[in-house]
């Protein structure tokens, strides 16, 4: 057991944990299930390819597989580290590609309980991190992350987040989100991970529960291929319409 004074900086732990989950390139299928309070559920399957570039730039190519009415819809997301994300979407039924500008990271990912920020790797500098009382006990860091200012709080849509991180693996196991009345409103639990090379990992299965609406969303990654050779030309607008 570690004494508080000897604990490593909370920001450093968060940074390390984040770095462990970032990979250079990856392709996978994602199945998203949203379950309503009454038990009704909705499924969506997408195929995603990601590739990391210099200066923290990450590009994602997403193609919808299910449901049938949106099959063929394709998206290209350019995740800039220091500026707003860029997004293009191709709508096959309308045969149109449109660029979308959206700056709000707190917004829901595909109508689920996950936010866009939950799906990406939010900048460590957007938050102030600190250890909570029991951090360091039971092989677990418990770190509270508070948005650096009101604008960031608005952008992310919560007042603070508590991350439970395994001290040995540095992997996040659970995140709790508090609303602006300081009430717990959302929990994300990491159910399983997929080990990558170099000791890195990616989340394979996670569940987000909204305590206000009693809705649950589950994301399951399958067909994960790490380090796939993807040509840069795949991440172009022209490729969307193919």
């Amino acid at each position, binding site marked *: 057991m570690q004494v508080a004074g000897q604990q490593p900086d909370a920001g450093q732990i968060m940074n390390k944990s984040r770095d462990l989950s970032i990979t250079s390139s990856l392709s996978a299928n994602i199945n998203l299930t949203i379950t309503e309070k009454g038990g009704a559920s909705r499924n969506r399957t997408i195929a995603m390819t990601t590739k990391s570039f210099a200066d923290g730039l990450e590009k994602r190519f997403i193609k919808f597989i299910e449901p049938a*009415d949106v099959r063929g*819809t394709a998206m290209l997301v350019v995740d800039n580290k220091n500026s707003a994300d860029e*997004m293009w*979407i191709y709508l096959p039924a309308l045969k149109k590609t*449109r*660029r*979308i500008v959206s700056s709000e990271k707190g*917004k829901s990912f595909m109508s689920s309980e996950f936010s866009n920020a939950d799906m990406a790797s939010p900048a460590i500098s957007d938050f102030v991190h600190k250890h909570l009382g029991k951090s360091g006990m039971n092989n677990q860091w418990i770190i509270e992350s508070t948005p650096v200012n009101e604008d960031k709080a608005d952008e992310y849509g919560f007042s603070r987040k508590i991350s439970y991180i395994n001290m040995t693996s540095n992997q996040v196991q659970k995140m709790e989100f508090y609303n602006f009345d300081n*009430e717990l409103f959302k929990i994300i639990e990491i159910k399983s991970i997929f080990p990558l090379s170099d000791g890195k990992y990616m989340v394979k299965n996670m569940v987000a529960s909204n305590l*206000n609406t009693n809705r649950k969303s589950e994301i399951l990654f399958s067909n994960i291929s790490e380090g796939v050779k993807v040509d840069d030309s795949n991440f172009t607008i022209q490729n969307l319409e193919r």
Partner: protein
Amino acid sequence: MADFIFRYRWIIILLCLLTGAGSVLIIPRTKIDPEMRNYIPQSIESRVETDKIESEFGVQDMVVILFSDSCIVSSDNLNRIKNIDRSISRINGISSRISPFTVKNIKSEEGMMTVDPLIKGIPSSAPDLELLGKDILENSFARDIVVSSDLTTASITATINNLVTEKETLQKIDSVISSNPGNAKIVKGGLPYIRQSLVKDVGKDAIILIPVALLIMLIVLKASLGSWRSVLLPFSIVVLTTAFSLALIPLTGWKMSIITVLVPVILIAVANNYGIYLVARFQELSFRHPEATRKELIRMLIKSLNMPILFSGLTTVAGILGLLTHSIIPAKQIGILAAAGVSLALLMSLLLIPALIFVSGSGLTLKNRKRDRAKLFDNILNNLSKLIIKNPGRILLVSALVIILFASGIAFLRIDTNQENYFAPKHPVRQASELINSKFGGSQTISVMIKGDIKDPELMKGIDRLTTEIKNQKGVGIVFSISQVVREMSKAIYTSTEDGYDQIPDTREAIAQMFELYNMSGSPDDFKQLTDLDNTKAHILIRLSDPENNIVKSVKARISELTVNIPAEISVGGYAMIMSDFAESIIKGQISSLLFAVITVLLLLTIIFRSFKGGLIGSIPLTASILILFGFMGYSGIALDAATALLSSIMIGVGVDFTIQYIWCFNLQINSGLSYPEATSSAMRTIGRSIIINALTVMAGFGALMFSGFTSIRFFGYLVLISIGSCLIGALVIIPAFLMKYKPGFLGFETDKKKTGKDEKESNIIGVTTAAFAGSRSTA
């Protein structure tokens, strides 16, 4: 009965006191229900449909915060609105909101669809602010929705949820506003604020009206009965029965509504009557029989008054019970509470007052008989009886003409269920409502839920037709629907020269992909009130700038026409629809309660006068008063609403007494061998004054309602003057003239088979009312 009272006097007194004390302890548990939708039964169609829609799309009750300034698009104002909007968005009890900072600009620029906030950053320079003003006016989701087209007012509209209490949410909003001061004037409106004001004002009304009514009654009793000890007896009945009726509210699990405050006032105005009769009669008997013992006097009192008091009480209860046929829930409750109170007043008067007289006795005699005041009455009544005896036919003709004139006003009678109108024009809630209705499309809503495959282009086109058509209906402010979002997106996807621009796509896939596009760009929260997660239900929200009943009815009819060909299950609900059903309930309740009360009173009169014809004649003043009341309401513009709809039943219950008293007295005069003119003159002299004072007492009691904070309850107070006044004229002008003119055969009925001559006079209702007020001629 007298022996029973003598024997158990202390038990009677104790039981009555315990009832009063117990009631006083229970009253503080009373809760107030400001939710007008609870006034109509849950099974009514609009409530069922609204509940169905709200279970899918949440409660549609909106809080509207308005910011007004000479120009609202200034840095200071916008920063303040932004801060308040941000804090409101963080309140747990708010499920969604529309403000200048939530509105999006969906634009197509150089092949890009941008979904950006309308206000990305607050400009500081004048040209930039001017540009923003222009942007606002061009944005169909902003203009007259979040900023008025004259740029003087901005609004934050927040939909509340049930996660926390409404009270807590409103407190938080108030605290957010007070911690963000600024130049722009802020007013708050919407149903949650209306409800909050109702709760506050209903409580305030009860605190003001009950003491005022009691004070008025105390003054009236003192003027009528003389000594304070005499006043105390009927007054104690008033206090005990009022407390009892109020205690019944929490005991039955009911809640105090805006109109329940009428219950104590009804009791204060009516419950003293029987006590007054008894005390005054006792004074009378003591005066006439100074040699009699207290027991003998009480025996005489009970013997002479039981029947007439019972008649009087029963007709009042029958009239009030007419309210049971109302479908408005608080109306039924008032019927039960007031009838229970009056019944208890009747019982207590017959038991407690003799018991109290028996134990306290002295001090009840009248020391100062106010003859001078009586003279004025006598002169008026003498002249009136002369007029009636001389010209009964003309009086009847003039009366008929006056009644017809008033009755024609019924054509103008309107129904008003808009609870905004309960508040005086200067009340902040009313002012906010007027601002919302005039500049922001109103806060009262109609909801249409469409169940089907929302992505089906045919269905979406149906929704679009409905949206477009309903928008043009009179009284409709703003309409929100998913079809508008689809059309707005089509404007961002296509250029204005392309097919498909500002149109609903022709394929299901195209609509599905548009939804997906929006999910990726905006937030699904932006239209979570317009369609559900799996797009099997759509919600069209219609905000009414004029929630008047006829407008709601015409919008409802148009919705039916426009949805008949939509291939889906349609539900139409919303607060405005509930209020429309509420208006229907008021009409139906008014008719049924009137029928019930008139028939019951007719039956009672038939029994009392032992003749059906007598019953019919006795009902003339009531019928005339009903016509005059509704006609007056029509001409004066006072609407039939939750409060004024109760008036006719109460009027029948109270006003019928006057006719019974007059006919009973007139009959006695005929029985004692007087001619019709002599009987008219004598009845007018003996009973007329008592009837007038009785009517004035009731009017004075109800007069307290003029101090109410609610317009509708104040109108009720004014209308009582009209209705009781017309009952009074009916009993003292129309009935005497009718009896003079037609000399109906039922007259001459026996009032007490066992008694004759002088004794009979003491056992009848003349004695009651004549003696009821000091200075009665019969005691001279």
